[in-house]
């Protein structure tokens, strides 16, 4: 099942990596953020929250406090800005969004993410790179296996649940596949071992 998940997510152009613990997840996220090109600033008159040219932004809403502290220290020493709320003030773009998945679906390589909170939703929408943490034990074979859990969630409305499979894509011009149209250009799935 794990193998199927990795293969299917790969087929959908996601990068899949295994990580032993959260520390190495944070290392990974910061590392690819530092290595990536500066983000494309999509909104020129980016208002109050504009950051100095070249300053990179990581958004990590919903991260546990102790990891926020650790990530914050790492960001500061690398001149990266860390944002954990109010993501709607960054419509011009964020370099990297770090979020947690609730489940994975092996059949299609899909992440199931509870995105009730607008910040968590935006972290996976307006970031150029989306890094998602998926605990190994939360992978199910088929979407049908999640019917009960999802049903419960829908019943405690309001609810906004996202199935995410690979980065944003389009083939609207000459059917040529292009990644990253409105959403992330890249999706990295970090499978957390033993979790």
């Amino acid at each position, binding site marked *: 099942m794990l193998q199927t998940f990795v293969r299917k997510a790969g087929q959908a152009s996601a990068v899949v990596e295994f990580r032993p613990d959260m520390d190495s997840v944070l290392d990974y996220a910061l590392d690819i953020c530092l290595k990536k090109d500066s983000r494309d600033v999509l909104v020129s008159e980016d208002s109050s929250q504009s950051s100095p040219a070249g300053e990179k932004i990581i958004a990590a809403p919903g991260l546990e406090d102790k990891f926020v502290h650790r990530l914050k220290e790492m960001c500061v020493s690398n001149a990266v800005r860390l944002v954990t709320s109010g993501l709607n003030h960054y419509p011009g773009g964020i370099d990297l969004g770090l979020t947690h998945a609730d489940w994975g679906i092996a059949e299609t390589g899909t992440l199931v993410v509870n995105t009730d909170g607008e910040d968590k939703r935006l972290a996976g929408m307006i970031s150029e790179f989306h890094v998602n943490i998926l605990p190994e034990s939360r992978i199910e074979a088929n979407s049908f296996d999640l019917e009960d859990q999802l049903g419960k969630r829908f019943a405690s409305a*309001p609810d906004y649940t996202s199935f995410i*499979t690979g980065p944003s894509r*389009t083939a609207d011009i000459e059917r040529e596949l292009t990644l990253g149209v409105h959403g992330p250009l890249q999706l990295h799935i970090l499978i957390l071992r033993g979790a």
Partner: protein
Amino acid sequence: MHTAKNRREYRKGIKKALKNGFQRQALNRFAESYRESRQEAFSGYDLSALIREIAESRDASIAAMDELYKEFKKNAENAGARVHFAGNAREANETILKIARENDCSRVVKSKSMTAEETMLNPFLEEHGLQVTETDLGEWIIQLRREGPTHMVMPAIHLSREQVGELFSRVTGEPVKSNIPELVRVARKELRQRFIRADMGISGANFALADSGTIGVVSNEGNARLVTTLPRVHVVLLGLDKLVFGLHDALRNLKGLTRNATAQAITSYVTWITGAGPCAASPDGRKEMHIVFLDNGRSLLARHPVFSSALRCMRCGACANVCPVYKMIGGREFGHIYIGAIGLILTYFFHGREKGRNLIHNCLNCQACREVCIAGIDLPRLIKEVQALIRDRERPAVLDAAASGLLTNRKLMHGLLRAACHAQYPISGGGPFLRHLPEFFLRDHGFKALPALAKKPFRDRWPEIKSEIPAPKYKVALFTGCLQDFVYPEQLEAALRVLYRSRVRVDFPAAQGCCGLPAYMLGNKHAAKEAALYNISSFNPANYDFILTLCASCASHLKNNYPLLIGDIPGREPKVRQFCDRVLDFSSFVREHAGFKKDWEEGREKKFAYHAPCHLCRGLGVYSAPKEILKAAGLTYVPCPGEDSCCGFGGSYSVKFPEISGEIAINKLEEVRKSGASILATDCPGCIMQLRGTAEKQGYDLQVRHTAEILADCE
């Protein structure tokens, strides 16, 4: 969006579309790659079981539409959304305008919704002073060009990167390079600003889950997520047909939908929204959410015993992807709003007779759409049923009326055909083709040589050529069909030689007439019924093991359509079933029962390609019998791309739309030429007339022959 007022205007548009080289090439490439990638996407799946399940689930939801609506409304409103019902397009548009006014909205971002196209929501809102931006890349492109979609999933498939580059340069006021990643980047940037400024988001939905009041939205770009998140007001516009019982139906149907639409196991995003959630842009921190259900005839359709199945459609677009006509002319001429085979049907119901009447004829009845439909809709049948509805309400065209009248009057028709045989000599010169037809008579029909009528029809030769077979292995009756009877009797005689060698007793019930398919194709159901009743009364099926035909079209019409046409007449049902059960095509009979001689002479030309007649492969499920027999007889089979795509004949279709018919035939022959085969074998005299005639006229060095003729040569 086709807007022609009459068939002449419509054909003008078609001729223009046929000259659009870019579109032709794009659609051609797409058709090929779609076929392969779809197969791949469903590998490991029991596809027919999935289709059956989806069809059943859709039918159950459609039958429960009213209750599902009530349940959905209750649950969604409990979760903080407002649910509205719109009886027609106008009401839907006015409801949405009212929501905009009440919430003081003026800038709208939209994600894709075919339902909004159906109600022509954008022009309506713009007329009332709102600014509306489509945010799906393809939709945005066509919005900027003020066009309608030409495909339900890929709305801008008719445009090249250069055309989009020019468009974007104009819109941004800066030069934009025509490479695709750059074009996509420009769209990302331009549209992001619109997202930020918008105060209202309008989306469609693929599913509405009654038991929780949840909507499911399927997308790849992620624009639907921004549309439903950033602006403070979210309006969903969807048809009542999107209602399902609950999550299980949605998850299962989703498995079929995305694989059939774009050959994806799932799209990048599937978003499930239940009720009005938090929203930072809203003054009270909560989203204002409205869900507008459009009826527009759906609840009436849902009650119809036959047409309700049209509501099973989930808008995957596959019926266009496999349609040989769509491939030639594209979506502008092949739909009003809804494109493809389902578009031919829905246009009539959603947009009226005026918009539907020209479109409805543009079907070859090749069955490719029926085979690919993930919801198991018998699209070709519905197209014929709509055609019959239109025909019943209007005076049929003179040609249609004359033709279907003649087709059912056997005596008159057979007499005329015999007389015509003698009258044709000056133009046929006694050869197999009509060579000297005046140009003005042919015009657009000039792509193929028309065959001469046989000197003596099969029915008149029968008494001389019939043989008594003592102690036969099988007893069969021949259903000849008109084309072989009067034009190609030699195909039937070849079959007789093969059958007699295998000790099969053959009977020819001479009272038989036209199978009725031509009348059915013209939408004349009444005449088709009459022909069916007449033919059933001309045979005594109990006397035969099989009723054989060498014409795939007759065979599939007898077997599949007779039960639909006359199966429900009280008292007739047993005999209709007895008759239909015995109908079998020649090649299957030879392969499975009679056997054949296996000595194709050494040194003779033996490379053959095969053309699978639509009504044999998709109509009767016979894909390989003719090929297998010929291979076993010692010939060499050469595969050819598009072997089982239509030859473009379609009976009266080739008379109504000769320009499309001819292009399809030429495409097919080009593929055969590339394969290097010198024989093209097939199992239908209609296909032979089309392909042999086109090969003759266009100068292809190719023998187009019936399988029976080739087999008979194994002497």
